[in-house]
Structures are given as C-alpha cells and as structure tokens.
C-alpha cells in the first residue's frame, strides 16, 4: 500500500480542450515531504495541471502517478490519502463548520480530531454558525480544515490565501509550515511570488502550458548565478553591474574609491529575487 517513490511523478503531461492546448507536455516530480509551488499568471495551466493530479480532469497525454496511483482512475483509496483545497469549493448554506468537519471526517479511515482541526483553523468561535453567515476568510479557513480533517499525506492547495487579509495570510502560512513539519507533501499553486518564496522548497514557473523554470526559489532562473552590484559613480549616475564574483568586483570598486579618497555611494549587493526571475521569464516576447 505505501509506496516508496516520489509523491507525484508526471511526465509529458498534456491537456487539450478541442483546439486549445492548456498543457504542452510538462514534467513534474514532487518528493515526499516537499512543499512544491506552481507559480504562473492566470490561464497559464496551473489549475489544469493540479486538477489532473487531483483526479478532476483526464489528461490528453503523458504519464501521471500520485502516491503510486493513476489519478484518472479516481480510486477511493487515493482520495483517502489526499486533501484538496479548491479555488471554487463551496459548502452547504445551512451546515455548521463542526457538522461539516464531522461529516467529512467520517469518510476517512484515520481522521484527525474534529475539535483539534477547528482550533487549528481558528474557527472555535464560529464552529456552530451556519456556513452562510461566515465571512469569506472564515469559509476559506473551513476549506483548509476540510482538506486536513482526513489527515492526508498529500495536500493540494489551489490559491489558498487569495482574499486573505495579511494577518490571515500569515496564519495560513504558519499552518502550511506546520504541515510540512509533520512530513506532509504539499502542492501549492499561487500567483503571489512572496508566498512561493516563503513556503515552497521548489517552484515551477508555468506559462502557456509549459514549465519555464523549476528549482528552489533561490536558485531559480537564468540569472541565478549572478549577483547584482549597484552604486553611484563619480558622475552621480546609478550603475548596475552583474557578476558571478562579487568579492572581486567590490574589492575593485572600493580600492578605486579609497585611492580617490571617496566613498562608494549607495552601494548595494543583491541577488535576483524570484520576482525578477518570474518577470523575466513570463514577459511576453
């Protein structure tokens, strides 16, 4: 039953809707215990990819294995081991969070304690309120709770913090980090760069149905090896130089400046952020 391979392995995964090609053959491998981010603009194919992995859509081509199962077969056994936070998942208007969690918990072989999940989601005060009276943020936390109540090994989070205020967002991040510490595997789609940078062990940047780059956020992209050194030169112009060896460049700059008895004004050394990489990769040619 338990299988030793990666949590997810997809090769040459493609999806067509009629003439429209949503995924043009992507390869994804998600290791167990990893937080994997799928980052990309709207319409890039993120949700299509995730919904194929979740078993909602059938692929047009390629091979997919999720916890050793083919998700297209939609086996109950696989669904018992995954948790899904949908972008558009609703709930009955007249159910309370406690009832919903009890109802969902009963579908799983080893559910988490319902009261504990209510507390984790911060819904203690609203546990017996009708869902229709909950705020958008509270409903989103209920989404989270429903995905976690079955104690799944693998959790899909599709834009989990969209619409959250900064405080709720931080809290969601903490929850995701604590899940990671429990050894859960998490697949996260987001269009927030800071979210991917803060949470993901590895990120795939996806656009027009293709993966443009994949790797840890810090090492991602074509400029990854470069440092960016910026300063104001003697004429007051802002200079930006890229280098693989900032030590030598800084030595050169500071030596010259000291020789002239000046300071290097507004000196900064930086690495390209995920945002730089993302903007560079997803810019329309």
């Amino acid at each position, binding site marked *: 039953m338990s299988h030793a391979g990666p949590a997810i392995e997809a090769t040459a995964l493609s999806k067509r809707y009629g003439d429209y090609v949503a995924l043009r053959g992507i390869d994804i491998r998600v290791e167990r215990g990893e937080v994997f981010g799928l980052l990309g603009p709207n319409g890039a194919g993120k949700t299509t990819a995730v919904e194929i992995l*979740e*078993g*909602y859509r059938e692929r047009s081509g390629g091979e997919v294995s999720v916890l050793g199962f083919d998700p297209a077969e939609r086996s*109950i*056994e696989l*669904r*018992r081991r995954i948790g*899904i936070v*949908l972008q*558009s*998942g*609703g*709930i*009955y*208007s*007249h*159910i309370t969070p406690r*009832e919903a969690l009890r*109802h*969902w918990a*009963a*579908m*799983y072989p080893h559910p988490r304690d319902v009261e504990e999940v209510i507390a984790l989601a911060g819904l203690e005060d609203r546990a017996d309120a*009708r869902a229709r009276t909950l705020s958008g943020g509270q409903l989103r936390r209920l989404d989270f709770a*429903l995905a976690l109540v*079955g104690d799944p090994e693998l959790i899909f989070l599709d834009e989990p913090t969209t619409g959250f205020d900064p405080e709720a967002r931080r809290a969601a991040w903490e929850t995701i980090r604590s899940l990671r510490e429990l050894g859960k595997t998490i697949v996260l789609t987001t269009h927030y760069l800071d979210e991917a940078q803060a949470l993901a062990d590895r990120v795939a940047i996806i656009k027009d149905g293709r993966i443009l780059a994949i790797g840890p956020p810090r090492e991602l992209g074509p400029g990854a090896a470069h440092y960016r050194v910026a300063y104001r030169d003697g004429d007051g112009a802002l200079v930006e130089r890229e280098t693989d060896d900032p030590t030598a460049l800084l030595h050169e700059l500071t030596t010259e400046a000291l020789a002239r008895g000046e300071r290097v004004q507004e000196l900064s050394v930086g690495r390209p952020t995920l945002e730089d990489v993302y903007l560079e990769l997803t810019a329309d040619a």
Partner: protein
Amino acid sequence: MPEGVVLGWRQYRLERRMFWRNPSAAFFNFVLPLLFLAGAGAILSGSQRDLDKLVPSIAAMAVMATTFTALAYNVVFLRERGVLKRIRGAPLPSGSYFGGVAANAVTNAVLQIAIVILAGRTLFGLDWPLHWAELLVFVIVGVIAFAALGVAFAHLIPNFESTAAYVNLVFLPVVAVSFYVFDSSSAPGFLRTIAEALPLKPLIDGLSGAMVTGSDLGNHLDALAVIALWGLFGIFFAVRGYSWEQTRT
C-alpha cells in the same frame, strides 16, 4: 454493514438536516401542496366526484414537486456553489452520495403522499387507499423517474438564477395539461395524446386506481410502462450529462 452503505446513510441524514434547515424549501415541499389541496378542496367540496379527482392529482403533483423540481434546484445550486466539486474530491463513493440524495427525495415524496392521504381522509372524508401495493409501485416508479428527470434537466439549466424559469417552464404546463386531461372527458384528442405520453398523467391514473377507484395494477400497466420509459430516459441523460462543476454562467 458495508462502508458504502454507512456513508450513504450519513449522507442521507445530512440531506435531511439540510432540508429542514431551509424553511423555504420545506414550505414549498409540504405546505404549498397542502394549501393547494385545502383551497381546491374547499371549492369542490360539494362534489365527491371532483374530490376523487383532486386527491390523486395533488398526490402525483407532490411526487413531481419533491423529486423533479427539488432535485433540479438542488443540483444546480450545489453545482454552482462548488459543493458537488468538493464532494467529488472526497473519498465518498458516488453510489453513497446519490443514494443519500435520492433517499432524501424519496422520503419527501413519501411524506407528501402520506399528508395528502391523511388530508383527503380528514378534510374530505375519503377512504383509505384501496390498493396499497399498487400505490407503492406507482410511488416508487414515479419517484425514480421524476428524480432522474430532475437531475437530467438540471444539466440544461445554465445557472441558479434561471432555475425557477426553467423548472416552471416544464412543471406548470405539464401539471396543467395532465390535470385537465385527467379531469375532463371532453379534452381535445391532441391534448389527450400529449398528456398520455408525459409521465404525470399516467402517474395520476395509477394513484387514482390505487387510492380512489380501486382499479388494480393490471389495468394500469401501460401507464406504468410510460413512467418507466421516462425513467430510463431520465437516468440515461442524468448519468451522461452529469457535471460536477459549473462550466457555463
């Protein structure tokens, strides 16, 4: 007990609870037909013949309202809200889910028939149904057929806002033509043909035989066949066109 049955039972209990918590749904399901029965009954109370026609007609309409109408509304609402999609992602067998949902509709239909029978007896002094087995057969086949047709029809409804328009476009004409043809022996031939081909009039015939006239099942096999054919048609399109999520707006 097999796990699928346990989960189906839990789904049924949840559906019941949700049903009672939605006062407008409960009202439309129970109070409206009862008011209709009482109102029409008061007008017709002088004529036993009319009352004999009214009670099975209302009973059949109640079956259609609790299954066809209620399920069309429910499926469109749950689909639009994303509840169906969430359920699809949970480890709940489809059979358990639809079993629970169908059992909920059956419960409402059975409660309705019971209310109509009791009301007919207490308000209008009608007898108890003469053929319980025949009543049971027609209620079961009618419920399955109209429930399947309701789910199939939901596929044609683009969004929740337009559900009332779509449902009434079917419900009201079907009720009107079926009631008229059942009541009037002088109905034009083409209307009679239409009414006999639709599932409601055959259901009224069957219920009338069981509840009022005492004409037994053997005399209503053609009516039963018409309802069953509609049921097969409904099941085919309910399954084929089933969509777990909103694709149009």
